[in-house]
């Protein structure tokens, strides 16, 4: 049995290596991609351009503009003279928002009857950016107003001050998390694409029938088909891991062995899913399309786009069947927090169970398809 399996694996590797474009691509492209993308992924909402229309032109209006500009989130980038010009800048997306300081604003702050108010308008078409820019603008204006009020009464204001301390990532940069997600996603894509062609390609060119008359047993066939993508995935993972550690200085606070073990389980589960798709589809074109849909489903339910806890209960349950969910949680925790493997037992078990169940399901499906 080992002999048969070995010859199949050798055949698979020869076939893979014979396509130099593919080999170069799956080994070099992920590396290139993590280098380029890691460098360019944003740290967070910073330096968003805002236009200011200052009709007041007083020391106070200038003070407000400086306070806004001094926040991390906002850069005052334009001073249009007319409201319409500012509006056009927002429409075109050149600025994320505009601040209007009305004429007589400073005078109104001293008046007992009038309410002095500036207007902040934010482009809500990108909701994450809008929410953070908005709260930065609001707190900048508020603290300026509070200081003025304290200065007027010369008595400290009561109330509760919140001091934030962020563990593992003091500046709360979005970059470490994004880069780690990139590793998981790229490994996922490459592995699943190499794996999904396994059965369907043989079927398309007519060699599946030939394989079915050889003494090769179904489980052996599938195991042989699983090895190459797993090797490719592992090489990808290791190369990207080195880049991320050396070039981007992402911390590795946990056990490397634990991460390696989880990565093997993860790749196994992904490959099992890919082989199931491969046995169920009729052509490579179909298989690729299904993989694309599967990739989107995984991205959706893995906690990468939105935290899993915000999903309805039913979807949270379905997400247990998505290997990416367990792997993302594990790799983030191990690398950024140094979580011990004992705390990741649920993820480990889930990945192992998914791999075994999918592999058995694939074997049964394959026997129905070939008989």
């Amino acid at each position, binding site marked *: 049995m080992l002999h048969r399996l070995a010859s199949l694996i050798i055949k698979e590797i020869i076939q893979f290596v014979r396509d130099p*474009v593919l080999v170069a*691509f799956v080994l070099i492209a992920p590396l290139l*991609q993590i280098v380029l*993308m890691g460098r*360019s992924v*944003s*740290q*967070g*909402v*910073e330096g968003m351009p805002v236009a200011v229309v200052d009709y007041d032109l007083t020391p106070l209006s200038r003070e407000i503009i400086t306070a806004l500009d001094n926040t991390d989130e906002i850069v005052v980038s334009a001073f249009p003279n007319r409201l319409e010009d500012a509006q056009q800048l927002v429409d*075109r997306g050149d600025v994320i928002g505009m601040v209007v300081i009305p004429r007589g*604003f400073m005078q109104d*702050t001293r008046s007992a009857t009038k309410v002095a*108010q*500036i207007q*902040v308008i934010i482009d*809500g*078409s990108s*909701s*994450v*950016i*809008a929410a953070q820019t908005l709260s930065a603008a609001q707190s900048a204006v508020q603290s300026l*107003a509070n200081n003025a009020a304290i200065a007027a009464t010369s008595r400290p*204001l*009561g109330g*509760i*001050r*919140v001091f*934030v301390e*962020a*563990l*593992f*990532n003091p500046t*709360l*940069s*979005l970059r*470490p998390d994004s880069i780690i997600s*990139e590793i998981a996603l*790229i490994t996922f*894509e490459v592995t699943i*694409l*190499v794996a999904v062609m396994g059965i369907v390609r043989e079927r398309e060119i007519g060699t599946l029938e030939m394989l079915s008359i050889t003494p090769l047993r179904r489980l052996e066939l599938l195991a042989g088909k699983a090895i190459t993508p797993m090797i490719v995935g592992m090489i990808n993972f290791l190369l990207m891991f080195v880049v991320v550690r050396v070039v981007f200085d992402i911390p590795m606070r946990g056990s490397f062995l634990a991460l390696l073990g989880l990565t093997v389980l993860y790749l196994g589960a992904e490959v099992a899913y890919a082989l199931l798709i491969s046995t169920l589809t009729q052509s*490579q*074109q*179909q298989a*690729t*399309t299904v993989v694309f*849909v599967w*990739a*989107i489903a995984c991205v*959706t339910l893995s906690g*990468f*786009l939105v*935290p899993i*806890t915000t*999903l*309805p209960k039913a979807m949270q349950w379905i997400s247990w069947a998505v290997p990416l969910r367990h792997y993302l949680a594990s790799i983030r925790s191990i690398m*950024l*927090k*140094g979580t011990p493997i004992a705390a990741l037992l649920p993820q480990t078990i889930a990945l192992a169970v998914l791999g075994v169940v999918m592999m058995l399901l694939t074997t049964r499906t394959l026997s129905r398809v070939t008989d």
Partner: protein
Amino acid sequence: MSKPGQSLQRTRAIIRKEFKHALFDPGFLFLTLFAPAVMLMLLSYVFSFDLGEISLALLDSDQSPQSQAFIRQLTADGDITIDQVVGSHEEIVELFREGRVDAALVIPPGFGRNVAAQTPADVNLVVDGSDATGALQAISSIQQRVQAFSAARTARMAAPFDARIRVWYNENLKSQYSMVPGLMAVVLILPPMALALGIAREKESGSLETLVTTPVLGREYLLGKLMVYLLLGVVGALVALALAVFWFRVPFRGSVGLFVLLTADYLFALMGLSLFISNFVASQRTVSAIILLAFFIPSFFLTGLLLPIDTSSAISQALSYSLPATHYITIARGLALKGIGLAALWQPAAALFAMGAASTIASIVVFKKKIA
């Protein structure tokens, strides 16, 4: 040698052949026409729930009536729950490691005395920075509640001025409204991928070689294919748009005609690049790997879909703007939410057209050379 009339005829023959292929393969037809809509539905659904629960650990060294009132107020609406009560800072780190809580609130001794005396009282909020997005959300939602608690207890003092905040285009900052148009760019990668796979399949099966022996020229073959897939892609996009508007109730304030035109523009850019890529690639699995890595994965990181485009370096910006999806996300959000016209959108539209035209011409040139 060949008259334009004949060339047109041959292109038409290619178009007819491609349509027949598509119609005889219902699975494929379904996947190009309806799969974008199905995927959009899946993606959009998860964005309909804006607020998640925040699970909090509590370290209350004060244990005063004031600190208890403060905690009651924080957890009153059920969005924030106290799941663990701890006695030390080390326990918080341990809970974060195991992923059991999202944040921890530390109330120092003397908190109650300060609140009662109406002098500033401090609390510490410890967040798990390994999930920066979640941490930022937790901070802002806790800060809002703290502010409400403070306001009710401090002597009202008139601030001399304030800011009135208005949000345009998406008044309640619903993330779904901004994500659904943006995600159109992601799901519309499918039709161009189908095109590239179609060409690779003809190479693999050898029918491309047969085609070369016919009078059909390279450009007729490529343009004919491009037109069919472009048309299917636009129909698929309209199905997805209908779903977004009628099912998810996402506003669409621009012109549908312009949407069709600019979506065709986006597909043209993607398909031109796909044609160019397929010139150098012989197998379906390689071409699909390239398209997923070049178009799909970067669209989540570099296009402004989730995070702002990184403007700190020229390389990052060049990279972001070389992706067609970056431009289409601006277009789709502009049309759906801002309701703006071509006057404000000509820049991304022109960028997409330039990409499409340049890559299509390049692939025709390369194709001719390869056959010759």
